[in-house]
């Protein structure tokens, strides 16, 4: 199937909306939700629209519905900061509670939310091995097991016929798979950035899912 990718002995489907679907487990994996990023900036005087959590959750909810996922794995930086959960508007909090209670939900912590506590629903882990795959927030170059992570917010930037295109993408190498950021207000880092190169090793490719095909772009060594 042209939309899936084989990684660590498992089939995965990178989805156009920046999530990774794991058919064998009925699991959705997402990274870098950055809930309440807008209100974090607001507390410093930049009053960004207070709708980012609602928007992120609405997209997540429709992916869950469409895929029929039973498990959900968040690969870190789910909250932009640890006070985020307190600032979350009631509507967003309601949507989040509905999801964490109906799904088997796991938070992997990240550098933005290192001491996330269980009060948000679901279970909290530093990192975890699932069916021989390591799930953690930031890729470790010395890791020998196949590893799925987030953290870098990779984005593919290319110019086609004079037109600049920038798209959230997955970065895939032999032993590493990095997810794009899922959050509504999360920016991106060029997938060709040396920092990502160091994290995944070479050769690597950027994966861009479209509705009918998974596009693959080699990243320069």
């Amino acid at each position, binding site marked *: 199937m042209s939309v899936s990718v084989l990684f660590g002995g498992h089939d995965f489907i990178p989805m156009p909306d920046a999530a990774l679907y794991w058919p064998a487990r009925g699991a959705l994996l997402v990274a870098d939700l950055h809930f309440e*990023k*807008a*209100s974090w*900036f*607001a*507390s410093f*005087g*930049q*009053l*960004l*629209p*207070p*709708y*980012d959590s*609602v*928007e992120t959750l609405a997209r997540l909810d429709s992916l869950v519905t469409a895929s029929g996922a039973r498990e959900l794995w968040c690969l870190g930086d789910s909250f932009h900061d640890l006070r985020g959960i307190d600032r979350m*508007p009631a509507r967003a909090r309601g949507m989040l509670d509905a999801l964490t209670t109906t799904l088997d939900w796991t938070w992997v912590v990240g550098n933005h939310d290192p001491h996330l506590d269980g009060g948000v629903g679901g279970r909290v882990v530093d990192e975890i091995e699932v069916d021989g795959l390591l799930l953690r927030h930031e890729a470790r170059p010395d890791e020998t097991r196949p590893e799925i992570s987030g953290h870098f917010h990779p984005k593919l*930037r290319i*110019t086609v*016929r*004079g037109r*600049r295109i920038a798209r959230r993408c997955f970065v895939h190498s032999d032993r590493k798979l990095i997810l794009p950021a899922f959050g*509504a*207000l*999360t*920016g991106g880092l060029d997938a060709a950035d040396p920092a990502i190169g160091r994290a995944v090793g070479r050769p690597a490719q950027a994966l861009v899912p479209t509705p009918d095909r998974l596009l693959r772009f080699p990243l320069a060594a």
Partner: protein
Amino acid sequence: MAETVTLPPVIADWLAARGWALRRHQAEMLAAGAAGDHALLVAPTGAGKTLAGFLPTLAELIAAPAAERLHTIYVSPLKALAVDVQRNLLAPIAEMGLSITVETRTGDTPSDRKLRQRERPPHILLTTPESLSLLITYPDSFELLKGVRTIIVDEVHAFANTKRGDLLNLAMARLQAINPGLRRVGLSATIGDPEAYQGWLAPDADAESVTLVQGDPGAEPQVGVLVPEGRIPWTGHTGLHAAREVYKLIAAHKLTIVFVNTRAVAELTFRDLWNVNDDALPIGIHHGSLAPEARRKTEAAMSAGKLRAIVATASLDLGIDWGDVDLVVQMGAPKGSSRLLQRIGRANHRMDEPSKAVIVPGNRFEYLEAVAAVDAVAEHELDEEVFRPGSLDVLAQHLMGVACAAPFAPEAMYQEIRSSSPYAGLPRELFDKTLGFVENGGYALRAYDRFKRLTLQGDGSYRVSHPRMVQQHRLNAGVIVEAAMMNVVIGRRRGRRLGQIEEWFGSQLRIGDSFMFAGLTLEVTGFDGADIQVTTGRGDPSVPSYMGARLPLTTNLADRVQALMATPSQWDRMPPDVHEWLHLQNEKSELPAPGTLLVETFERDKRHYVVIYGFEGRNAHQTLGMLMTQRMERAGLKPLGFVGSDYVLSVWSLEPVTDPKPLLSPEVLEDELAEWMAASPFLKKSFREVAIIAGLIERQHPGKKKTGQQVTFSSDLIYDVLKKYEPDHLLLQAAWADARTKLSDIARLNSLLERSQHAMVHRALDRVSPLAVPILLDLGRQRVEGEATDDALLAEADAIIAEAMS
């Protein structure tokens, strides 16, 4: 206005010692000052405008010396205002031996001096709109500004109708509220509609409260049109052949300014001139992308008389007095008579001698435009500007700034804002919405009550919630938002910075590409963050240059071009090839007469073309192209593309258009426009600008390192979220207003569509018409893809021309 005002003896003696007499307009300015009236002086360059503006101030300070009291604020659009003022103000003050202090206050002024200026001010403060706007954010500014007698706004014509003008006008309203006796003085180059500018300058937009003083016209300028080798190309820009003739002109004059319309053309022209520079004459280049140090160096070389010519864009347009310029060359079409006249004014600053200028058209339409511009200048016809309402993002910034100085009551502030002419028509509801945005972001979801920037106090007034927000405001104030830029650095590590290019252009470059910049062909050797590392390369650049902003052809020149075309007796003024071109058009199709709308349709190479002679400027034509292709798509005509110029729009499709009228219907235009704009990148670009000006997003300060936590966010993502959850938000409204005025020229588009319904002339032709050739050649150039060679393109051009003219 005839009463004479006695000139203080010291000024009279100073004039007499130089053998000068007080000019009429200077006397009238003096009288207006003595009467305490606002005044607008409209005079050509070289008329002693600056001195005329300052004369009442000097007279008052001589009559009643006041120690350490700010008397006059002078606002100029340029930071580098020193040269002109040095000559026209500081020198006279020194020569008259007056103890009048003059200081500048701009973004470059050290903060200790700024502080000292607030405590012990000079008599005359020279500043910019941004610095003035910042000055009024200080609580102690009330004390400082209370006694100011006069504010002088230089280059009013360059300010009015811009966001900087909005900011300045709001600051003037603030000054007037602090000090009702403040006198406003405007200095302007020759403008088409002085009354509109009187209104802009006046409190409460009351034009009659401003005395208009007109300078005597200078000698009539001598403007010629240069036809290189007697031939005018079909399309494109002035080329190497023109460079040779321009070079001859440079060699025959002392100092020439070669004006061009875009930075890209500046680079090409500069290179062409150096290619023919057999005598190695010192020729410089000046445009907005060059590093400030490079620009200052060129300016210094020029005023020191070390250059023979300078190739420049609008970055040199404003009224700096460059001394001994004796020729202005305009490469390409002038686009507007006012702009041409201001550029011509750069040559020869003595009023009694004519300025000399030469227009070098690059193609046939530009030739017609050049002739039209020469006529317009001779007949003193100037472009009129359509004034738009003040921007809401600027208003938001101003309100926050005012609150930084002292709490304000909304009702009184609303009245004050309405006394600023760009905001004279501001409805209360929109004022409240803007205030709400400043207060808490203006969201329906009241999520930010804890983070409010303004706090409502018991007495109904608003104050800034936290001193930190005052600091933040001062750091981010200003209305000039630079596009994201990359540095061009020559050499690797710690190389020399040549200047900056827009990030969208820079990020398309790859190692090994070469492009034109700073008059050099540069080859990309590497990237390092926001730096593009380059070495000097050889030969032609491999990547075409970036485009600067282009002003569309003005309505009045467009009308003149059409009138020239439609009047065969005028054709004798044209070179033979242009004459023949118009003659054949008349024979094979017809000429687009003023007041009508000529539309041609024909088939060529299995494609069906519609060519619309709109003469409404590039922006309106581009927008129409977008709308027409949408409509043709729906009608099943299978449109393939379009290309618009200042004069013409051409759309091509697989199916023929038999009746163009419904495609040009003005009905549902607003809806379709909304649909198109929403999907276009322009709106997001405008949003970024308004979000920064209004204070939603902080400016990126160059050189300031981001801390790890401060991950940046993209304004595009904010736009998407806002559009989905709060489509009526103030900033979306402001972005929309900007995009409309800047990009689509809605008024001119409407005028074209109206004409199409009752005055359209449709000619169904069996082949391309002579007048359509230039646009079809442009279209050919836009289609260049990978494999096409220059030879193939030349062959195609040849075939189109042969078909039209046979």
